[in-house]
């Protein structure tokens, strides 16, 4: 008797007809071998073949010829395939296709591979009666293994249990991670849209950083929450010399930094000179400053090269002009640590949140909350949900499309106020036909600013044809362009422009609302024969192309403006650093220069009003709207004031 070489026999190398397993020596006998070797089986064979019990040998060859020889030997000896009778029962021979145990695979030869099958054994092909040669080949069988479903149920049940365990949790509302009230005035958790990039106020330009730094550092003067005019902070008073070239600031006494050191004039001199000497990102704000000097510990003198009526705005509009302690850059790592004079100290910051704790020795009195956690929740819907279920108590990340529905919602206190930001479109003066004033005016006449504002902010924006919002002292009511497609078409004709004219409009997905609003602009320009191709770019590419002048038109905004110089000067002066469109009008230059040095507010406003009218008429910028500041907080939260400049100050906030 023999078994084929693809049936495992302990100690006998097997190949399975494939070189890949050559040399494989099984460590276990195949079931069939085990059975063949079972003493009772051997006894039966001995008996069936009429041999003395115990004669049967175990062979170790695998050649077909051997197999056949054995088979023929069977035939000769017994005159047929033996049908074992007796103790072989279904207990011994089990299996789905075993069939009648009496026809069980007790055979001289068992083939295991049907693919090579009997192809290499032509002598077996067509013999018709394989059993007669003692070889049991596999029955064709469906590939289905009848594993009962119950076998898998425990697994599925385990999965269900696991999920329940995760989902259960026990309590209903999570307050872990510092949320909720309780303990030392409690911690206010504020959901902000993004992580601060770093904490060096003189280096960073990112709004998420300033949201935090606003509460940590102070400036000499600050914009008031009511009307954004400048009021004392670290400086208690200031005076200007006759020629308007020398400003003398008197500093507040008894101010300490978070590390306990005293604040004095040397800190101011150090901070300002750091910005100037290292040419940090805000050094342009000191363009007119000749020197910053201390005159005793409580006095700082700033000397200017030309009168600068907006000096307070230059040094106080935001915490980018923060006062650091002397040598702070050497003493601590300003990118990750902070040492300010503000109401809160920087406790820690990681990739999920930034934590501030109240500074008990704050010169304005310790804040009423024990600390603030700024938690980064980028997705507005998630931020709003977190506010509604009490995980956070404040957010400025409100989905604009939900503003209206939230106004009647008791679970959330929502407030809006017009911001000092403005959004505009600008066309490239270096590219025909946009160098033509009539073409630009035609486009200005075709655009319905209300509709654009609605598309961008769902009503949370005020259409405006100039830059400065209505609430500002410097607002100038000037709106010469009412939507008028006929006049627009006429202007295009007058300019001799062939329609349809294709205009690329560059927007950035950094501000997704502009992408939506650009589509409205495109639909408004289509009737006058201008085919707008919207180019949506990431901000880095966008800025690159703006810098290279590679565009027909772009759509962007200026944020956080407080002074008319910030609104108009750099953008519209000939060769101004942000005059990308290439606008040049000597009359505007002269008016802007006059505004920049005029110290009388009324005369200053008159100069800027006049400049604004020319800028609007020439369509240097095509002003669109001022968006609202939208913030929401938990009902009952008090002491917080929403501000047009989007500064977020939690100094006097009280938890519900």
């Amino acid at each position, binding site marked *: 008797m023999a078994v084929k070489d693809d049936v495992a026999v302990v100690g006998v190398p097997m190949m399975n007809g494939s070189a890949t397993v050559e040399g494989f020596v099984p460590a276990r006998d195949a079931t069939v071998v085990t059975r063949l070797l079972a003493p009772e089986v051997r006894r039966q064979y001995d008996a069936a073949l009429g041999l003395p019990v115990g004669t049967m040998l175990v062979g170790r060859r695998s050649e077909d010829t051997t197999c056949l020889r054995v088979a023929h030997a069977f035939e000769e000896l017994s005159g047929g395939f033996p049908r074992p009778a007796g103790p072989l029962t279904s207990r011994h021979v089990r299996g789905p296709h075993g069939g009648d145990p009496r026809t069980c695979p007790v055979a001289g030869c068992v083939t295991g591979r049907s693919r090579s099958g009997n192809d290499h054994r032509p002598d077996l092909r067509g013999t018709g009666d394989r059993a007669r040669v003692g070889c049991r080949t596999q029955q064709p069988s469906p590939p289905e293994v009848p594993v009962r479903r119950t076998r898998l149920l425990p697994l599925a049940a385990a999965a269900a249990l696991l999920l329940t365990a995760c989902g259960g949790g*026990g309590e209903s509302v999570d307050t872990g991670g510092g949320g909720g009230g309780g303990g030392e005035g409690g911690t206010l958790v504020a959901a902000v849209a993004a992580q601060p990039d770093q904490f060096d106020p003189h280096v960073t330009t990112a709004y998420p950083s300033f949201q935090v730094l606003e509460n940590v550092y102070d400036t000499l003067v600050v914009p008031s929450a009511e009307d954004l005019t400048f009021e004392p902070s670290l400086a208690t008073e200031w005076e200007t010399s006759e020629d308007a070239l020398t400003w003398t600031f008197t500093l507040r006494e008894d101010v300490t930094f978070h590390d306990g050191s005293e604040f004095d004039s040397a800190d101011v001199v150090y901070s300002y000179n750091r910005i100037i000497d290292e040419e940090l*990102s805000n050094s342009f704000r000191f363009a007119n400053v000749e020197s910053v000097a201390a005159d005793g510990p409580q006095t700082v003198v700033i000397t200017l090269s030309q009168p600068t009526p907006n000096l307070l705005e230059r040094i106080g509009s935001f915490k980018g002009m923060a006062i650091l302690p002397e040598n702070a850059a050497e003493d601590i790592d300003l990118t990750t640590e902070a040492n300010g004079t503000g109401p809160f100290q920087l406790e820690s910051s990681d990739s999920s949140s930034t934590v501030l704790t109240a500074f008990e020795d704050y010169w304005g009195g310790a804040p009423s909350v024990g600390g603030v956690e700024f938690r980064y929740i980028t997705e507005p819907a998630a931020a709003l*949900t977190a506010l509604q279920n009490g995980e956070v108590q404040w957010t400025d990340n409100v989905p604009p499309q939900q503003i209206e529905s939230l106004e009647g919602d008791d679970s959330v206190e929502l407030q809006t106020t017009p911001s000092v930001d403005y959004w505009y479109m600008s066309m490239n003066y270096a590219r025909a036909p946009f160098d033509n004033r009539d073409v630009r005016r035609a486009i200005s006449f075709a655009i319905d600013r209300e509709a654009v504002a609605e598309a961008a902010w769902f009503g949370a924006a005020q259409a405006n044809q100039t830059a400065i919002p209505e609430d500002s002292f410097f607002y100038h009511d000037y709106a010469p362009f009412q939507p008028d497609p006929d006049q627009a078409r006429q202007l295009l004709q007058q300019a001799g422009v062939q329609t349809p004219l294709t205009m690329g409009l560059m927007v950035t997905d950094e501000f997704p609302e502009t992408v939506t609003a650009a589509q409205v602009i495109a639909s408004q320009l289509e009737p006058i024969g201008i085919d707008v191709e919207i180019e949506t770019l990431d901000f880095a590419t966008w800025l690159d192309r703006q810098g290279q002048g590679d565009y027909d038109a772009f759509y962007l905004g200026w944020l956080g403006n407080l002074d008319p110089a910030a609104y108009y000067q750099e953008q519209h002066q000939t060769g101004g650093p942000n005059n990308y469109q290439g606008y040049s009008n000597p009359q505007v230059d002269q008016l802007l220069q006059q505004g920049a040095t005029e110290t009388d507010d009324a005369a200053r406003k008159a100069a800027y009003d006049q400049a604004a009218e020319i800028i609007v008429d020439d369509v240097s910028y095509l002003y669109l709207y001022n968006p609202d500041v939208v913030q929401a907080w938990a009902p009952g939260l008090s002491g917080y004031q929403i501000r047009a400049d989007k500064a977020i100050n939690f100094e006097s906030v009280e938890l519900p």
Partner: protein
Amino acid sequence: MIVFALVQLVPGDPIRLALGTRFDQETYDALLARSGLDQPLVQQYFSWAGRALTGDLGVSFRSGETVTSQIAERLPATLTLAVASILVALVIAIPLGTLSALRPRSVVDRVATVLSQIGISVPEFWMAIVLILVFAGTLGWLPSGGYVPLTDDPVGWLRRLVMPAVVTGVVSGSVITRFVRSSVLEALGADHVRTAQAKGLTSRQVFTWHVLRNALLPLVTITGVQLAYLLSGVVVVEIVFSWPGLGQLALQAVQARDYPVLQGAILLFAVVFLVINLVVDLLYTAIDPRIRR
């Protein structure tokens, strides 16, 4: 080298971006010199590669922190989410895939096929927002997002992990389900299974030793691929659930053109892919003796 060149070739200038829209040539030049971007590209590459070999991936332009510390800070969150997602995926995929393979064209199979099709096609951000609105909003059972380390707050950790892990797990699981189904079907049809049945093994033995073990090979491959994908950060899910993982970091680095961070992250992803492929190959030999030599 390719990574380095590609990253630098992307249009957009990190210094301009850091300055924002307000542009000033002197400040620009000062920042450029400080970042080392004014050096020739080849020189930049060799100094970067040299330092990278010693484990120094440089300093982020944006935050001023070292790249290694930024990556190290986010690695635990990414690992947690990736492992949890793969677990969810396998818990879904193996039973579902096997069941539908065992009963091809049955109701179970059809339901599983439809479910996995839905899992593959539904956008992750949509599923994520729906989960937040339902489980954090309406039901209030789970926090809407965020991450706390396991060591700080195990319960909070688990509660924050559930939703992101389910979203990514369902997506990966849907893909894996299909692989399980087809590889189990294939294994069932293989000759050795017939042999196994023929030699009289119980269906359970046949299934565990002959079908499942053979079906495991493609499963290991696809699970490895999915794990590598999950480890390189699932940007959308991380953003919606405020999960501070590597995907977010890489996205921020791309947006800010923060070359050192981006190069560091890509280098890490490459290493992750290599390691996972190695582990997959090693697993092959453990599962399949034929490959052992």
